[in-house]
């Protein structure tokens, strides 16, 4: 089909018939302000913010809905359009409480941005603003403020079209209209927090993130969700060297614009019982001592028993680099027994969530295959210990489901070296614990269930001198005089593993999404710790 020529603010672009003015303007590099429009949702054209002047109609046309015509000339900065925008904003702000200092959306609010870009004029209203319910628990994870709502209906359309649960509706008319759930229902679908991202104002806020931190203090980095094997692309927002929230990041191939609520809560798992130093026989030690103790313990065990009695437990939550480092150590020692743990399988749904709750099982399997190794499920370790075949383990990770027989069997082992970021039942009673970094603290890659390898960018400052797992494994190996390559960074491990397993190739230097709000203090609250308040 032939293309149509359109002129937008003097820039001529050629677009296929049926393109909206908004999309044509995007192509021409002209930004048209919107509230209700979203790429993934239907277009009700109800906010009237995108009205633009054309030579084809006497009145202004909504750019998000109107399609282009041949020879159309669109102006987005002429006095008529600008005056209309100003009036639209004046109507929207008529009953919008300007309590930005209290509102959690301030700093990332579309209304705030549009007001400063397109209006920035004082209120002419002399009536009191409408008062509506505030801080309503509209769902278990979402807090609703009816006053701030501008009734763009993005959340309503999301629940109708994407999550297909349809809990939300618009009730009342005119200035009294507000968003509400249908009687007896609550906004509790598995994707409810996407409505918070969609909300252009502070009407829908995340109950978890609410009032935790102002958004302009947040630092960001691009990463991947650890919640399941889908590998949804996320932005890790962190402040004071703690993860404050996850936000979905657009990826057309994986997760579109969305991520599930369960995935957003996974950051808490890596904050519980976080290890900030190694342990030898239960005593806190510096990392270098933990590493040499681990090497000495493995050496003594191999000399006393044999390397055949040594097993490695791998985690499908480790990055490919970490797994590669651990496998290199195992191979240098001559270990042949491998067990794979990881989170227990759960429920899948039609949209994003997969039953496998481990983000990197595919990568782990590929790397095992690349080294010609085989692994058994973790449950087989119980029988392995009972039969006396396994006398010691090197254990990676903490995210394995509780298993009473295995927990009891572990107590009988002569050697338990654990490389983990968080303490768990699997590290209690271990002879040596080496504290390692979480995925948020390390650079690396994960391979999702579809076989797509995706890059994780380091978000947090590592606590103290805690090493990534690949580095810990390599240092243990070198202490045992094993011939391990001298890796200097995750990049060099990645380059090596891609040579062995070319299917795991990906762009290492992608957009990192790093944004600095306020520098992260490596030891959060150090002032308070150093000088506790007296009296």
């Amino acid at each position: 089909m032939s293309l149509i020529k359109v002129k937008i603010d003097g820039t001529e672009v050629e677009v296929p018939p049926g393109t909206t003015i908004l999309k044509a303007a995007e192509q021409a590099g002209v930004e048209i302000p919107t509230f209700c429009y979203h790429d993934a949702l239907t277009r009700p054209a109800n906010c009237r913010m995108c009205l633009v002047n054309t030579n084809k109609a006497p009145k202004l046309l909504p750019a998000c809905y109107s399609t282009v015509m041949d020879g159309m000339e669109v102006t987005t900065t002429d006095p008529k359009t600008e005056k209309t925008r100003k009036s639209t904003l004046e109507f929207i702000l008529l009953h919008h409480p300007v309590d930005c200092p209290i509102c959690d959306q301030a700093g990332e609010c579309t209304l705030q941005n549009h007001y400063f870009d397109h209006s920035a004029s004082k209120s002419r209203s002399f009536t009191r603003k409408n008062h509506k319910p505030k801080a309503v628990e509209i769902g278990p994870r979402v807090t609703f403020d009816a006053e701030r709502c501008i009734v763009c209906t993005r959340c309503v359309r999301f629940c109708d079209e994407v999550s297909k649960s349809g809990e939300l509706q618009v009730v009342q008319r005119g200035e009294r209209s507000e968003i509400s759930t249908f009687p007896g229902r609550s906004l509790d679908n598995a994707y409810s927090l996407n409505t918070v991202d969609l909300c252009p104002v502070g009407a829908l806020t995340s109950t978890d993130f609410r009032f935790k931190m102002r958004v302009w203090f947040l630092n960001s980095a691009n990463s991947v969700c650890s919640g399941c094997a889908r590998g949804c692309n996320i932005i890790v927002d962190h402040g004071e060297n703690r993860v404050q929230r996850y936000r979905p990041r657009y990826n057309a191939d994986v997760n579109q614009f969305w991520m599930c609520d369960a995935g957003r809560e996974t950051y808490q798992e890596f904050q519980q019982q976080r290890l900030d130093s190694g342990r030898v026989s239960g005593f806190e030690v510096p990392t270098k001592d933990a590493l040499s103790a681990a090497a000495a313990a493995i050496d003594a065990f191999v000399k006393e028993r044999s390397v055949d009695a040594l097993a490695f437990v791998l985690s499908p939550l480790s990055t490919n680099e970490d797994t590669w480092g651990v496998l290199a150590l195992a191979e240098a020692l001559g270990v042949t027994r491998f067990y794979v743990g990881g989170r227990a399988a759960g429920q899948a749904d039609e949209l994003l969530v997969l039953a496998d709750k481990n983000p990197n099982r595919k990568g782990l399997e590929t790397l095992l295959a690349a080294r010609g190794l085989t692994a058994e499920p973790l449950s087989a370790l119980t029988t392995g210990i009972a039969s006396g075949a396994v006398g010691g383990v090197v254990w990676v990770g903490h995210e394995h489901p509780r298993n009473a027989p295995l927990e009891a069997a572990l107590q009988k082992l002569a050697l338990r070296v654990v490389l983990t970021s968080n303490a768990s039942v699997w590290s209690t009673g271990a002879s040596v614990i080496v504290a390692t970094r979480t995925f948020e603290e390390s650079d690396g890659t994960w391979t999702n269930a579809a076989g797509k390898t995706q890059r994780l960018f380091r978000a947090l400052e590592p606590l103290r001198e805690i090493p990534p797992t690949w580095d810990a494994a390599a240092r243990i190996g070198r202490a045992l005089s094993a011939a391990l390559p001298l890796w200097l960074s995750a990049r060099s491990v990645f380059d090596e593993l891609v040579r062995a397993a070319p299917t795991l190739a990906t762009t290492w230097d992608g957009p990192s999404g790093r944004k600095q709000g306020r520098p992260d203090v490596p030891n959060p609250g150090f002032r308070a710790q150093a000088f506790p308040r007296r009296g």
Partner: protein
Amino acid sequence: MGYKVNRPEFTLAENAYFVEMAKGIGVATKHLVENLASRKHTVTREYPEQQPEYAARYRGQHRLMLRDDGRARCVACMLCSTACPAKCITIQAGDYGDDQVEKYPIKFEIDLLVCVYCGMCEEACPCDAIRMDSGVHAAPELHRAASRVGKVDLLRLGELSIAQQGGTFR
């Protein structure tokens, strides 16, 4: 271009040293006697018994202003800690729920040793909640921790503000 400096030549008496030394001892003795008698020449202030007079716009220790019902006016918007160049203000926000003002500070701490008394927090505050007009000179403390003043101490200096919370309706 330089200019000529007038350097008077020393007289014979000045070069003789002892005469001038005797004169100097004379001045010192005179001051000593006068100070012992009536403290004529001392400029030392007997702080803290004798407090200095502060100017009306003197920026002293911070205080948190109160609402009509005695709660802090502060809504924990963090604008003061955002504006603070010394990063000495630590605020933790809490939730009142469906109140007129839903946000309040659970914790509000200022490290007076880190503070540079620039007054940016006052300027930034949209609620007239933090002020530095207490007229209290931040006291030296024996321990650093004692200089971290919390919400209770800041509110103790506070009083009602005549500014209307949430602005005025015209």
